């Protein structure tokens, strides 16, 4: 036995012999190694003990023991979002799996490639209400891209290969592989397939050239163009192409919450995030443009509000997405292009470059003039002279102190929106947030996954005092694996976002949104073996951040006592028209 850098005991004497019959548990572990998996986030239990025994004997990947299965999946998710690789989680049957479901649904809504392996009761016991039996395939069906129950050890290796293939190709998503305990004990010859071909699944789609030509033409004819890009550009690794096209055309660009970082936020052509808490200029440009190019985005309700209202203003729409079912789901589209966004953008750039037609410069200048007038409203302004710490100020300073170069994860609520608005992401994959499901508890475990994937990187988890308590137990995991995440807790003593809605739409009746009996976060952090800081004055914000980020190898929990009454602006109320956008100065 030797021990590795993390102090994990490793048995060096274990060796694979080619051609040997292996048990299902050995095969599972061997498949992960052969797939090139570096990290597995998991939690043991009866149904996966055979697999854990094999994990003990191997050294192909590192296992990270979380403190709750939800966190295992969020951590694998953070790993996947920050690297573009498939994240892997391993949980036991029954409660292990049900705990993982929130994580799986979170990944599903944001199209994150994961392979989740769950233990199951032995095949003979399935359907007998056995101890720790749940219908895992049934429970997860609506929130996975696909799932498998492996009933025969001879199908195990191919199934695992299929799972990785399905998770990572096309529109990515989580795939569950449920393995009954007896299957992990049965033996068969092991071969890990190089690739799999599935007649029912063909993910490679090339955009239709004729459609791309039409799109190029339409873009060049625009007088008030707008480019709107979403998470698909990040997932498709097409930020470079998007940036090139936007610069080539000189058009305004907005990103969705999921798409932040796909176009550099510090660039003048970036008009900010759009949607419910998007900038005034982004939303106005979105609604007043005459040609809209949507790339890897899905026109969801938090972005365009009600489709009928959005459709009232006439504009021609080009929509590029890898998932045909996303196109024409909520809005009518003039030029639909189904395909890999990067490849389609490459072709589009070529066509625009080659075209003899040029955009209408005077019209474009007029359009920018209009946009700059909207911009002049300075919709993200806040009280910078406040005596109480403003949450926006903390994020602005965080951006400065980290030179805009941190990896940022968040939880859900006001802090998430302020982070999106005030941390200017210039690179893709740096912004890691639960957009689709909006899962409180995501931030800390996701940050752990990001930090483990990028040990040298600066990782910040921006959270609220309510959200952080949903996965606070992971502070323990962070100590075990020395993940020096910086937790930026914007502590307003309220479920701020809930309080904001209650203030606006429920006559200030703050039903159950006050967070009473909060722990002393400084002592809590210390109890977990970390550094805790409490910051109460605006003047202390920057020095404290500098001090914390200088502690390179420590997790620092920064408890910022912020203004309780601060709201997120602008705000387009749910289901309301864009013209009903509420700006800070109007209150």
């Amino acid at each position, binding site marked *: 036995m030797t021990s590795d850098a993390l102090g994990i005991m490793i048995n060096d004497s274990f060796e694979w012999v080619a051609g040997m019959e292996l048990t299902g548990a050995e095969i599972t572990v061997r498949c992960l190694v052969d797939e090139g998996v570096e990290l597995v986030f998991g939690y043991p239990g009866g149904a996966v003990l055979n697999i854990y025994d094999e994990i003990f004997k191997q050294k192909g990947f590192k296992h990270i023991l979380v403190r709750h299965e939800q966190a295992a999946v969020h951590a694998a998710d953070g790993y996947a979002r920050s690297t573009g690789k498939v994240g892997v989680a391993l949980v036991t049957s029954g409660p292990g799996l049900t705990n993982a479901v929130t994580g799986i649904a979170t990944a599903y809504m944001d199209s994150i490639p994961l392979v989740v392996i769950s233990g199951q009761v032995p095949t003979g016991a399935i359907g007998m209400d056995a101890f720790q039996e749940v219908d895992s395939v049934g429970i997860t069906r609506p929130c996975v891209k696909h799932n498998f129950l492996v009933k025969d050890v001879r199908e195990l290796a191919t199934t695992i290969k299929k799972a990785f293939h399905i998770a990572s190709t096309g529109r990515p998503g989580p795939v569950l592989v449920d393995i009954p305990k007896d299957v992990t004990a049965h033996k068969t010859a092991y071969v890990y397939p190089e690739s799999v071909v599935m007649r*029912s699944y063909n993910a490679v789609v090339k955009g239709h050239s004729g459609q791309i030509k039409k799109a190029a033409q339409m873009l060049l004819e625009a007088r008030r163009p707008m480019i709107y890009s979403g998470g698909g550009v990040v997932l498709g690794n097409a930020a470079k192409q998007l940036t090139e096209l936007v610069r080539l055309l000189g058009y305004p660009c907005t990103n969705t919450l999921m798409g932040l970082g796909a176009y550099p936020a510090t660039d003048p052509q970036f008009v900010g995030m759009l949607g419910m808490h998007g900038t005034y200029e982004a939303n106005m440009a979105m609604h007043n443009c005459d040609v809209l190019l949507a790339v890897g985005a899905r026109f969801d309700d938090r972005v365009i509000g009600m489709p009928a209202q959005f459709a009232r203003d006439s504009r021609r729409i080009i929509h590029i997405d890898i998932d*045909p079912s996303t196109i024409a789901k909520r809005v009518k589209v003039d030029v639909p292009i189904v395909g890999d966004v990067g490849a389609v953008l490459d072709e589009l750039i070529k066509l625009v470059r080659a075209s003899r037609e040029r955009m209408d410069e005077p019209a474009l200048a007029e359009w920018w003039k209009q946009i700059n007038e909207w911009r002049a409203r300075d919709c993200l302004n806040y009280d910078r002279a406040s005596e109480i710490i403003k949450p926006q100020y903390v994020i602005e300073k965080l951006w400065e102190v980290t030179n805009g170069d941190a990896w940022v994860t968040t939880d859900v609520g006001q802090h998430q929106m302020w982070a999106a608005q005030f941390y200017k992401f210039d690179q893709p994959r740096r912004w890691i947030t639960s957009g689709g499901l909006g899962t409180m508890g995501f931030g800390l475990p996701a940050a752990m996954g990001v930090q483990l994937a990028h040990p040298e990187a600066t990782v910040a988890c921006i959270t609220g005092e309510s959200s952080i308590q949903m996965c606070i137990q992971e502070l323990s995991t962070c100590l075990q694996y020395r993940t020096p995440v910086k937790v930026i807790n914007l502590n307003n003593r309220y479920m701020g976002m809930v309080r904001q809605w209650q203030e606006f739409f429920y006559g200030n009746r703050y039903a159950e949104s006050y967070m009473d009996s909060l722990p002393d976060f400084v002592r809590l952090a210390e109890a977990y073996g970390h550094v805790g800081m409490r910051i109460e004055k605006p003047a202390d914000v920057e020095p404290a951040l500098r001090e914390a980020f200088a502690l390179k190898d420590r997790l620092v929990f920064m408890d910022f006592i912020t203004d309780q009454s601060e709201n997120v602006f602008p705000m387009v109320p749910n289901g309301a028209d864009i013209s009903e956008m509420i700006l800070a100065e109007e209150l």
Partner: protein
Amino acid sequence: MRHIISLLMENEAGALSRVAGLFSARGYNIESLTVAPTEDITLSRMTIVTRGSEEVIEQIVKQLNKLIDVVKILDLSDGSHIERELMLVKVRAFGKDREEMKRMADIFRGRIIDVTEKTYTIELTGPGTKLDAFIEAIDPVAILETVRTGASGIGRGERILKI
């Protein structure tokens, strides 16, 4: 609009529940759904009858296509096709009604496949509308029990759904 959608899918455990789950999760309606293995035992063929606007039907087809187990889809309503459904009806048949029932079955080209002193069981095949018409045509109090399979469909002529 009523649509009849045919699909070929992997004959895997759980494939049917993926389709059924999709319809309920997305709030699409199912009028009928039939499924059975094909001559290739690795494939099942399913026929779904549904209703919706063109946009909804487009989404249904796209969402079905996204299911990993679905190999191929054809919206039969897009072209000419044939639709058949099987119905078994048990009816009261005694006294003067007995002769009348026999006559009705003949008119609709049904076959009496089970006979007791007081009942007939009639087998009837045809498009759903024909089965509806039969039910309409006979005295409702005479109906003891009905069972229908839901529609199966196939394209006319060269329209073939095969992999």
